[in-house]
């Protein structure tokens, strides 16, 4: 009996450690600020974490594809889709489902551009997606002509902030989202090919996977998911501003690192990334309740990433 438990613990240690960290952070929060770890607040935190979780899903696809994959444009795509959606829902009054499809298509196209640059022009993912941030932010300006208009419709607001039997809708959506992502990654040909391409490009190529197409699809997915995240964010924030999503860029990378997704590709679980997103959101909430401003949060995030990298990502020492 004991060996079964230990075996399970060893195999899933990453997940267990993450859950443990969540618990510890919530406990610390509860001590420092009474009410922090109340059921109501935990639900709030989980709702907040959903936005990060969605953007981190896109990041996961990009990182899994291998070759130091990274998508720095997730925040920018989210911001852009929020601006477009606000306009389509508001002044143009289009139905929500249509708007959803439109912005997901837009996100997919932007991700496609990333993917094309990375696979066919061999631009390193970092540089390509970093450059696209400028282009996408520029597109936001062009689309809105300098004045973002519109806001979320009631339906969208209800989805992002309302509840069903006491549970926030956004959590329900996120749960469904998690299932879909896990399904795509684990049980579809695409998902398995993605893991194969990420972990060993040549082997995947030899066994017939179209490596370039898979990579391009991965980045398109990243764009698509980020756009979806932007729409949800719009519903939550309700107003629209420029660069709404930019504060999610760094945390999405940290969540992916926390989740054990390797940057050489092909390794990692989205489920752990979800836990990573939750941990980060608890931390951010904690810092906010302690009145630590944006500067402090940036510092903390930077140090956390450094600490994670030191723990998990050191290169070998050179020897004769």
């Amino acid at each position, binding site marked *: 009996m004991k060996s079964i438990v230990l075996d399970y613990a060893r195999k899933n240690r990453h997940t267990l450690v993450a859950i443990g960290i969540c618990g510890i952070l919530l406990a610390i929060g509860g001590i420092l600020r009474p009410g922090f770890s109340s059921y109501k607040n935990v639900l709030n935190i989980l709702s907040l974490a959903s936005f990060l979780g969605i953007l981190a899903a896109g990041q996961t696809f990009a990182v899994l594809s291998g070759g*130091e994959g*990274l998508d720095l444009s997730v925040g920018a795509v989210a911001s852009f889709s929020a601006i477009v959606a606000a306009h389509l829902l508001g002044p143009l009054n289009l139905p929500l489902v249509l708007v959803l499809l439109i912005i997901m298509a837009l996100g997919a196209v932007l991700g496609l551009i990333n993917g094309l*640059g990375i696979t*066919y*022009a*061999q*631009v*390193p993912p*970092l*540089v*390509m997606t*970093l*450059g*696209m*941030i*400028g*282009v*996408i*932010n*520029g*597109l936001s*300006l*062009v689309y*809105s*002509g*300098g004045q973002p208009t519109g806001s979320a419709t009631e339906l969208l607001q209800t989805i992002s902030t309302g509840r069903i039997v006491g549970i926030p809708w956004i959590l329900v959506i996120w749960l469904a989202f998690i299932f879909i992502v896990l399904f795509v990654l684990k049980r579809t040909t695409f998902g398995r090919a993605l893991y194969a391409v990420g972990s060993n490009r040549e082997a995947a190529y030899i066994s017939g996977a179209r490596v370039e197409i898979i990579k391009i699809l991965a980045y398109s997915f990243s764009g698509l998911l980020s756009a979806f995240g932007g729409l949800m964010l719009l519903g939550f924030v309700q107003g629209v501003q420029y660069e709404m999503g930019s504060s999610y860029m*760094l945390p999405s*990378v940290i969540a992916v*690192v926390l989740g054990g997704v390797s*940057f050489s590709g092909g390794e990692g679980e989205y489920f752990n990334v979800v836990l990573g997103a939750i941990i980060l959101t608890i931390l951010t909430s904690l810092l906010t309740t302690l009145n630590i*401003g*944006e*500067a*402090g*949060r*940036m*510092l*903390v*995030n*930077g*140090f956390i*990433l*450094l600490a994670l*990298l*030191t723990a998990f*990502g*050191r*290169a*070998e*020492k*050179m020897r*004769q």
Partner: protein
Amino acid sequence: MISSLFNSRISSYFQNKLSFLSPELQDLEVSGPSLIFLIIVIVISSFFNPNFFAFLWSNVADILPLAFAALGATIVILSGEIDLSIGAAISLVNAVTVVAYGQPNITGGQALLIGFATGILTGVFNGIVVAYLRLKSLLATFATSFIYGGLALWLLPQPGGSFPALFSVRYRSSLGFLPMPFILLLLGIIFWLFYRRHKAGQSSISVGGNAEAAFANGIPVPRTKFRSFIVSGALIALSGLSLTCMIVSGDPNIGDPYTLQAITASVIGGASLYGGVGSGLGAIAGALILGFLKNIIFFLGIPSYFQEFVHGAIVISILVVISYVRFRGE
């Protein structure tokens, strides 16, 4: 393609006759295309502006911070690493300088020195993290960029502060008939040429090209990488200081666009992001090209909310085209 032309005929001729100039010739080989492109851009710019030379000098003043940043980026890229914290470090240098000046009994000159020290410290920190902690520079400098950015924001929550206007005047003044920024640019180029010849530059290039082989040849890899981050830190400090003199105020986000632009300038100048290949001369040319392009966009009368998009699209297109050409050409 052009480099192979140089390679086969011209440079081997010169290498025979002038082999002592070989580092410089290799440098020209790498940076050649960017220098040619720079001349083209200058010619195009001159069509847009009749009063070209005044325009040229004042633009060099604006572009100088980017030129220094691009030089710093190139030095790191040559050694096989990358520095994503350039922009944040520039913001930090700016913030520190302005806040230091705001303290009682600190003169402008002292504030500049404190700012310079800050820049070097960012180089030291990056260097320790990448060379000695052996973290991969991509994510590590991504992380440190938020540390420097957070510090800058903490020191200067809002743009503000002031700096003696004297420095702005001096910055745009002339020594004889050469404008100050131009002199500083020349100093940068001279520094690069020295670095390339010096053991520091040479070992950096071999480490960037093949770290294992360099190590096997006795080159102390960690120390070399550490050194390149410090040199880069000093250059980034100069970038931040010249920016501060230019705007004579503080802005915690002022450095943000510099990271991508410095890396792009470096790549335009011939640097390979895999390391071992690159040119500071080319990077400076790249910075000038990007700066002049910005002006051309402005002078084309494109509406302001289009400008960011056009600029971003051009930068990305340049990166894609250069990358594609190099990749296909191999």
